[in-house]
């Protein structure tokens, strides 16, 4: 494992080349790098469902997309995940900030935090919940699973996991 690489650099190294999403504090360090470095060409989306649309369009144009979002935005993105990304078998990587995972976050995160994994499982989307040690291997496994299943795949990240 190469622990010297930041997570954003790992994403590039894994082959991803199109980045869009909506910010969350869970991945603020990663997003700062993605936003500020021109090689990422980050496209800020106005909402999470629009981010899925952008990512699918980019995939149709030959790119390998990543969508970053908070889990509250995942709820907003469920329809395009089902009726667009899964329907057209688009492999895209969702990086979902898992707010409210332990019930100790702000009240608005409690219900969606408790149901985040269930929502993804209900849509039959492969998901990984990395910790700091398994982050790199989970990312690589997620990228392989996406390709094999030709489906969106989620990396659900608790606060503090992404470096």
């Amino acid at each position: 494992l190469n622990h010297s690489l930041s997570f954003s650099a790992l994403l590039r190294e894994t082959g991803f080349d199109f980045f869009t999403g909506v910010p969350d504090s869970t991945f603020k360090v990663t997003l700062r790098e993605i936003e500020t470095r021109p090689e990422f060409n980050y496209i800020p989306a106005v909402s999470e469902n629009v981010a899925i649309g952008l990512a699918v369009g980019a995939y149709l144009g030959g790119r390998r997309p990543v969508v970053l979002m908070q889990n509250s935005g995942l709820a907003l993105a469920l329809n395009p995940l089902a009726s667009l990304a899964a329907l057209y078998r688009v492999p895209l990587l969702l990086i979902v900030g898992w707010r409210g995972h332990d019930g100790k976050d702000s009240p608005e995160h409690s219900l969606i935090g408790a149901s985040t994994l269930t929502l993804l499982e209900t849509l039959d989307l492969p998901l990984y919940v990395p910790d700091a040690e398994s982050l790199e291997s989970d990312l690589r496994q997620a990228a392989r699973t996406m390709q094999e299943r030709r489906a969106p795949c989620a990396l659900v990240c608790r606060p503090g996991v992404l470096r």
Partner: protein
Amino acid sequence: MMRRGEAITMILGQIRDELVVAANGWISRETCAAHDRAENFYMLGSMGLASSIGLGLALAQPERRVVVFDGDGNLLMALGTWRWLRNEARRTFFTSYLIMKSMARRVASARSLRKSPSTALPWQPVIVMCFALRKPTNSTRLSPTYLRKPAPPSY
């Protein structure tokens, strides 16, 4: 007054190698009926996202021109995207910018809807967007099957 299907047929008759994204519902059906081609993408669900799919496609293929057939409801569901499309078109050297042209106005009166809901449908508008982030050149062409069967990415 031009019917939506006629407008779509007319535009498809003019285009050459442009990538086309058609919004859900009748717009996709009429696009398919008028000229089914490998460069067309028919958005079956995900209402509101034709504009963002078109933008993502244009960002990935900046030398290609992308045409989006969108509906008025779709437009309203993703107004935020439109502000961004405008910004992007200004920021880059997009030649013919973002063309947004309503080809037909909604004239489906309550009366015609009452008489026959299905015949009222073709009078709803189509919004036509055409954008490219660089001046399109004739040298870049996709294989005809490109949009339907994208090359599987290698990670």
